[in-house]
């Protein structure tokens, strides 16, 4: 495959292949998938399957009939896009909206740029953001997760995400201390008892997947650590300045899609910088933008916008912090 050819020679040969990396990511996503099934029941399975199937189908159709190139869907990248896209939507999303999201992700964000390795923006996030803008109503009614292993109907209650509750509460002129009492506790957020998208509710499952990918060297520590650290520090400073308006940094980390974004989406090899310092700057930008959008933006959640905005500057970051070239002395 030619798409790993990003740097000058000589190359270090290893038995890594695109396919192997992609399936490692899929395995890393499984704990998150498991929690979403526990929390949202069959809906989670249904949506994820629809999304993955639609992504594969669109990629195959475009390759076969529009680009007339050999089929590449077995490399697993469309499976990851499909899973991440499904993890970024509420569990009660109608199936046809899910299919439109997959079409946008594959048909607009990925294939027109030349397929895997050439896309500028993370396809799953482009799909997600387009859906958020296009179907604001369906994309922001969140079924509350049921307690694990109970058989209560899932879609019985809908509620706001913690970030949504904060934004609405502040608009009504409530005090943050008062709001904190209504918000889910840290333990609830770790285990997935908060309103939100399929894959963002349980912090602990995402951390397990992230550690697995680190261990298998599919991702490096730079982006997740700098992303989370920047968000934490910035939010903590805001909280220290005015606790009545801003929630603590640790809360920002655990709620919403910050962990999911930092671990699985900002680290996408194709759309993140190549060198270590480039990755750190990229992560810092994501963290900063996320908090800025969450605190002062029109939308309660800013992770996907932040990552997409930073995706756009990746080529510049690759210029400013070029990857190390072997055999060249300064």
């Amino acid at each position: 495959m030619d798409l790993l050819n990003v740097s000058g020679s000589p190359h270090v040969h290893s038995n890594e292949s695109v396919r192997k990396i992609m399936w490692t990511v899929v395995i890393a996503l499984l704990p998150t998938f498991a929690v979403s099934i526990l929390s949202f029941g069959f809906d989670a399975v249904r949506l994820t399957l629809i999304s993955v199937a639609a992504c594969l189908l669109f990629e195959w159709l475009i390759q076969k009939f529009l680009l007339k190139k050999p089929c590449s869907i077995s490399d697993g990248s469309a499976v990851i896009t499909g899973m991440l896209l499904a993890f970024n939507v509420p569990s009660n999303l109608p199936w046809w909206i899910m299919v439109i999201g997959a079409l946008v992700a594959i048909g607009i964000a990925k294939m027109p740029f030349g397929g895997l390795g050439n896309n500028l923006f993370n396809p799953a996030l482009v799909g997600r953001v387009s859906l958020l803008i296009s179907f604001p109503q369906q994309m922001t009614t969140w079924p509350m997760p049921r307690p694990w292993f109970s058989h209560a109907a899932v879609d019985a209650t809908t509620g706001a995400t913690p970030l949504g509750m904060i934004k609405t509460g502040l608009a009504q002129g409530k005090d943050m201390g008062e709001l904190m009492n209504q918000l889910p506790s840290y333990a609830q957020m770790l285990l997935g008892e908060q309103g939100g998208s399929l894959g963002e509710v349980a912090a602990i499952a995402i951390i397990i997947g992230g550690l697995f990918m680190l261990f298998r060297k599919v991702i490096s520590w730079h982006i997740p650590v700098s992303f989370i650290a920047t968000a934490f520090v910035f939010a903590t400073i805001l909280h220290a300045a005015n606790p009545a308006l801003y929630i603590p940094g640790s809360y920002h980390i655990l709620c919403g899609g910050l962990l999911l974004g930092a671990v699985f989406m900002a680290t996408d090899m194709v759309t993140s910088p190549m060198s270590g310092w480039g990755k750190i700057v990229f992560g810092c930008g994501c963290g900063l933008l996320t908090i800025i959008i969450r605190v002062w933006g029109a939308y309660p959640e800013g992770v996907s916008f932040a990552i997409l905005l930073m995706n756009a500057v990746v080529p510049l970051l690759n210029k400013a912090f070029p990857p190390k070239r072997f055999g060249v002395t300064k």
Partner: protein
Amino acid sequence: MKKAKSSFINMFLTLLVVCALAGAALAAVYQATSAPIQQARDNKQEEAIKQVLPPFDELKTEKKALETISIQSLFHKEAAADSLTLYHAFANGEPVGTAVESFTNKGFGGTIKMMAGFLPDGSIYKTAVLSHAETPGLGSKMEDPSFYGQFEGKNPASFNLTVKKDGGDVQAITAATISSRAYCDALSTAYSTVKPQ
């Protein structure tokens, strides 16, 4: 004809003549159209007033300073103009209502101007948007009866003029909460001038 040379005097004269002619043409057209334009604007104003009030036969115009208005909404602090125009309508000498030309700067696309008609008891009769620059297909739905219809017959004394998201009674336009808030803002500004003391 030979092409004019780019000498200083030629350039100077050309621009002078072009600008003078353009200015003269504009002045002439302005002269010719200013009366019909004013007429068209007045018609629009009058139509808007008729639209939001019960039938009437006499109008009295009043300017009311904005400083005296109680701050009703979160967004009211930055009002730019300092007065609103009130049109008190009478039928056979009896007051039948007041139309208030109100505005807000809190629209998604800037200023929204509206005409709001109130009955003597302070309840809303009808409202109409005079001008706006909201996003077509989203905020522009404020001109849809499905949105403005919900205000008709409501008395702001009991009907909370803020969107449901902020704890009020107004059903916001899908995906256009900012425009809906702005509409409520302009409407509560208008109401504050006619509120029975």
